[in-house]
Structure formats: C-alpha cells, structure tokens
C-alpha cells in the first residue's frame, strides 16, 4: 500500500488520463473544453499535492525500482507545470477538427505520466518502459494533425529515429545487464571496482547515452529535431521541447551520479564534446532559418548543449545550474509556442514574414514573443540570463581542474553572441517587419491562452529577478542526488 502512496502523483495523472479518454466518448463537443479545464485543474491539484511529499532521504517503492527523493520531486513538479501549460495550449488552440481533442488530452497526460516515472526510475527496466511510454505517445502526438502532410512527415521521421535510438537504449541495457547481472540502480552503484572496469559495461552505458541523447536532442543525435519541431502541432512541439528533453536530462543525471559513478570521470570528455558540438551546431544552423518553429528546433539543440555544460562540470553547482536552466527554459519555450500557435492559427504560417506587424495586431503576443526571445538570448533580468550565468559560472569553477572547460566557455560565449543575431531577428520582424499582402486585422487571443501567456511572462521575469527560490529547490534536489 505504501508503494502506491509513493507513486501517487503518477497514479493520479494516469487515472486522469484514463478518465478523460472515457469521458470524452459520452460528452458533446461543447463540453470538451470543460473536460480540458477539468484535466488542467486536476493537474493543479496533483501539483499542490506534490508538496505534501516530504521525503527524508530517498524512499524506495516496488522493491527498489522506484525512487522518490527531492530530485525526483523537482522534476515531477517541472513536468506537471509543463503538462498544465501544454493542456491549456491545446484547449486554447483546439485540435478538435483533427480527430478529437479528448484523445489529445489523454495522450498528453499519458506522456506526462511517463516523464514523471522517468524522474523516479531506479531500475533500468523501469527506465526503459517509462521512456518508451513517453516516446510512443509522442509518435502519435507529433502526427496528430494527420491531414497536414508536414505533421505526418514529422511523425515518420520521429518514429524511425526514435525506434533506432530505442534499439540502442535497449541494447545498452542488455550489455549492462550482461556485464553486471543486475538492472537495479542501487546494486549497480555498489558493484565491486573490478566489475566497474568492465569495458562491456562502458559500451552498454555508451549506448544508453545514445538513447538519452536522442531525447535531449544533443549533437550527434539531433538530426530529427528541426523537422519534427516544424511539422508537429505547436502544443506537441512545446511538450517535446521541454518535457521530453528534461526526461533525458533527469535520467542522465541519475545514471551519471547515482548509478554508475565510474562514468563521472570516464564521460567527462564525452559530455564536454557533446556540449560544445551541440552549441556550435545549434547556433550556426539557426542563423539562416526563416521559420520560427525550425529556429526554435535549432535553438533547442544549442540549449541542450548549455544544459550539458552544467552536467559535464560534475559538480553540485553545475547540476543546480542545469536544473534552474531547465525551469527558465520551460517558461520561455512555452511562451514562444503559445504565440506561435496563435499566429499559426491566424496566418497558417510561422515564418518571419507572418510575424510582421504583430505588435499592431496583438500587442500581447508581440510582448510575449519578445519576452521569450530576450530570455532565450540571455539578456538580464530574464530567466534565460540567470540560467546561462549559473551554467557559465559552474564551468568557470570547473575550469580550474580541467582546462578544457575554458574552451567550452569560449564556445558558449561565442554561441550566446551569435544567438543574439537571430533571436533579435525575430524581435525585429515583430516590431519593424514590413507586412506583406496579408490581412492585418487585430488578432483576438482566447482567454485560456491569454492566461497562459501572462503566467509564462510573469514566471520568466520572476525567475530572473528572484532566482533564489528556484535555485534553493534545485540545490535541495541536487543534494538528494548525492552531489556536493
């Protein structure tokens, strides 16, 4: 029974998803919105309930398979917030014409539950199954607008590359099991040193990293990101950008620090290399982009690089920075995609030209997009600035031990400078762009989206001005991971 209480948050999300799936069958289309709001409210209640969990130390359930600590709770709250915004976005933009909204809501809830299970996975079997739940659900969510060719194309690409990465993941798990004879994180952590030196184990861990790298959209596993971001419905893209990416990071951090600490030194250069390449690739490829969603796809790759710098430092400061960075990135990306969703609905396009004159058509949307871009670019006092600041600070501190970090720091700073160009290209298009022949009537934003956009903007500002509350939470989370 105690086991069920410990995984109560995920259980509640799953039950909500199942209920939405069933209820949707017997309600009229008008009531669909209410169903959506009901689901969001339930997620809100679950979010509040997450504060009732006060784990002293790490608590395990299901025979050590499921771990609940501050680290897991931090990410569960993160995923819940992301889930609430995504549901709000999908209710606001309403994919009703595309096969039914009820299914979209329940599938999003199942993906959310999968992410939350990822946050608590303490066994490679659970890791694989929960990651698959996320991935398989996203195959459907990406291709949800199956009347649109771009959406289907994105789904096919995501499916094929996702299946490939899953194959690597499961092969890696098999190798780890073959080398050690256990799937349990705690047993893996307490293996004798001789077994830890097994190259088979390292190869398995490397394949595991391939699977996680796909989720994080880090170079060289990034190839799907721009196309899928562009083709998928905006709410799916937003969920993919924050939820799926964070699921990769939560597992990476847990595997790295709690499960196979031997990898900490072994993977240092791997992580640094992947971080540097991700930043360079994302930033350079983003420059010529004219589609906002594609731009954010490349920006997501670059951001995976910044996050990986935090992870690569292997320090508590670095991990804390990564956790804070993710929180800031969450609101920033959500704000951007709320605006994109509305613009897409009105113009059917998401290139820079369709943004022209946006500040006249809807000052709120213009302000929201500007907030997001300025935050992504890392301008104080918004959340994006403080996240980058913390990551670079941690890298600077780590540079004393490994001079390679100075190089990484250089790439990161150059990346920030280059990214100013394209992020401000968006802002310029919004305020100074010359509108083409398209109708320039005002855009009415539905109230759920208005609420979501205001909340996201406030959160971006609040995180940037008062970072302490989140960094404290993040520090607590990192401490429970055993990092000092």
């Amino acid at each position, binding site marked *: 029974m105690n086991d069920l209480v410990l995984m109560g948050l995920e259980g509640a999300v799953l039950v909500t998803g*199942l209920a939405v*799936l*069933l209820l949707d*069958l*017997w309600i009229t289309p008008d009531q669909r919105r209410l169903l959506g709001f009901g689901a969001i409210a339930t997620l809100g209640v679950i979010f509040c309930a997450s504060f009732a969990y006060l784990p002293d130390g790490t608590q395990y359930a299901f025979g050590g398979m499921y771990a609940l600590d501050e680290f897991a709770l931090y990410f569960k709250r993160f995923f819940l917030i992301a889930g609430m915004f995504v549901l709000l976005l999908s209710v606001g933009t309403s994919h009703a014409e595309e096969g039914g909204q009820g299914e979209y809501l329940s599938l999003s809830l199942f993906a959310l539950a999968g992410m939350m299970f990822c946050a608590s996975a303490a066994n490679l079997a659970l890791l694989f199954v929960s990651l698959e739940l996320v991935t398989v659900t996203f195959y459907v969510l990406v291709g949800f607008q199956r009347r649109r060719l771009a959406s289907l194309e994105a789904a096919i690409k995501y499916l094929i590359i996702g299946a490939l990465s899953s194959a690597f993941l499961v092969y890696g798990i098999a190798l780890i099991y073959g080398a050690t004879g256990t799937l349990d994180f705690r047993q893996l952590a307490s293996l004798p040193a001789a077994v830890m030196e097994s190259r088979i184990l390292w190869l398995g861990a490397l394949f595991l990293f391939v699977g996680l790298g796909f989720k994080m959209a880090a170079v060289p596993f990034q190839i799907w990101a721009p196309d899928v971001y562009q083709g998928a419905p905006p709410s799916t893209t937003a969920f993919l950008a924050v939820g799926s990416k964070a699921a990769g990071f939560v597992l990476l951090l847990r595997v790295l620090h709690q499960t196979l600490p031997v990898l900490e030194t072994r993977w240092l250069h791997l992580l640094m290399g992947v971080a540097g390449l991700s930043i360079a690739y994302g930033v350079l490829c983003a420059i010529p982009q004219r589609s906002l969603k594609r731009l954010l796809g490349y920006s997501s790759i670059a951001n995976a690089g910044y996050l990986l710098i935090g992870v690569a430092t292997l320090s508590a400061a670095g991990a804390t920075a990564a956790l804070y960075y993710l929180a800031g990135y969450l609101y920033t990306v959500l704000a951007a995609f709320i605006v994109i969703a509305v613009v897409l609905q009105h113009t059917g396009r998401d290139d820079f030209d369709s943004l022209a004159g946006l500040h006249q058509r809807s000052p709120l949307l213009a302000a929201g997009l500007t907030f997001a871009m300025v935050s992504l670019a890392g301008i104080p006092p918004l959340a994006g600035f403080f996240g980058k600041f913390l990551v670079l600070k941690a890298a600077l501190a780590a540079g004393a031990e490994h001079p390679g970090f100075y190089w990484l720091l250089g790439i990161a700073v150059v990346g920030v400078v280059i990214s100013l160009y394209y992020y401000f290209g968006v802002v310029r298009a919004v305020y100074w762009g010359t509108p083409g022949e398209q109708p320039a009537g005002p855009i009415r934003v539905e109230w759920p989206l208005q609420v979501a956009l205001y909340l996201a903007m406030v959160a971006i500002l609040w995180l940037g001005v008062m970072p302490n509350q989140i960094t404290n939470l993040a520090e607590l989370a990192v401490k429970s991971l055993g990092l000092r």
Partner: protein
Amino acid sequence: MTEQTQSYLFLAVLLGVAVAFPLVMLGLARLWATVYSPAKPGPAKAAPYECGLESTGDAWVQLRSGYYLYAIVFLIFDVEALFLLPFAVAFTSLPVGAFVAILVFLLLLVEGLVWAWQKGVLEWN
C-alpha cells in the same frame, strides 16, 4: 546422454523428417514429369487460367485499409494474451497484488476496446 539432449535429438529427427519428406515428394514428382510429360511451353499453356475468361490487370490488388485496423487491434490483444499465460502458470505462487495488477491490466485493455467500439472502429462499412 542427459534427458535434455534427448529432447533435442527428437527435435533434430523431426526437423530431418520435415525437410526430407517434401524433398522426396518433389523429387518424385520431378522424376515423373521428366519421364512422362516433358515440358512443351506455349503462349496458351503459359496463360493464367481464369475460368475461360481473358485475364486482365495485375495480380496485385490494393487491400482496403480497413483490414489493417483489424490486424493491428488483433496484434495488441495478441500481446495482451501473452502476458496472461505466465500469469496463469504462476498463479498459485503469486501474492494478491499480482492479481490486482493483472486486473488493472485487463481493465486498461477493455477501456481501449470500449473506446475503439464507441469510435465506431469495429463497424464494417
């Protein structure tokens, strides 16, 4: 010889017979054909037999995509049935939690079935 290798031996014999039997039959048929009915192909003989009608078009026809849905729903319930077998075999030595778990498992799939039914997927038109 242990019991295990003996069971393998049985399999090997079965495999050998299974391969040999059709080979012998085919070989006999071949022998019969070469002796009694040498091949004399002609356009009329090579044409596919269509009840006396001229055959038209390709033998490949596109199936209706409706079949596909049934196949995939069948697949999912096939996988479900797989999990029932180890449960049934190990039933007596399982705790009560496992029983609840399989009940939840079945209920989830029933929910899927109800959903598909309500969506009209099971109707053939």
